[in-house]
């Protein structure tokens, strides 16, 4: 393998691993759930992204394959699914927070969290369109409020 290519691959690997690590530091360190959500969903995506990119460069131009791009399929998949995971987790957390006001027993929930949790409940009570079933979480929060 040519030296410049090796340098690029090595740099991407270290950079990616560093971001994976920092994402987990955020997960372990940040005070409450909604802030914790910011650590891993982001840093991990770019961290794994850099490592996958390194892999794609590494396997390209070797004797078996001219171009190796299948790592990009994993990358594409992660970039599509990461927002969905974050969205569902945030929804589940707020939903549980509505049920039990004391969500955190270690961190410090902010007043904003409680406000938004209430707003989640308040939303479905506004007049609903014919497609009322579309936001199931909101609907259920509403049912539970009654």
């Amino acid at each position: 393998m040519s030296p410049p290519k090796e340098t690029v691959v090595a740099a991407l690997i270290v950079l990616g691993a560093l971001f994976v690590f920092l994402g987990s530091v955020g997960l372990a360190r940040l005070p409450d759930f909604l802030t914790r959500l910011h650590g891993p969903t982001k840093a991990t995506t770019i961290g794994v992204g850099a490592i996958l990119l390194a892999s794609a460069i590494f396997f390209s131009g070797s004797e078996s394959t001219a171009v190796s791009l299948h790592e990009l399929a994993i990358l594409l998949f992660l970039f599509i699914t990461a927002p969905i995971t974050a969205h569902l987790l945030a929804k589940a957390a707020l939903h549980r927070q509505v049920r039990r006001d004391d969500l955190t027993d270690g961190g410090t929930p902010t007043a904003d969290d409680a406000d938004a949790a209430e707003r989640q409940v308040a939303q479905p009570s506004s007049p609903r369109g014919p497609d009322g079933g579309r936001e199931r979480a909101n609907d259920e929060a509403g049912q539970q409020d009654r």
Partner: protein
Amino acid sequence: MLNAALEIAFVLIAAAQALNLYRLLRGPDLCDRILALDTLGISAIALLVLFGIRSASTAYFEAALLLALLGFVGTVALCKFLLRGDIIE
């Protein structure tokens, strides 16, 4: 140089997984545990890809892809359970 980079990366990701495990065991909420599991899965993908580079074999690619697929489906299922299962009970 590539080998040194791989060593550093393995150490960093192992530390990351230890931190994830800490959050998984400590909680406090179920949502935290699910998030920790999801992150554990994603860092496992990184580990698999690094193994692939180290052994210069593309056989790890399918495993990484499967882990990405199953991790996502599992996380979504767990979240859905939190959102709906609680209500029915």
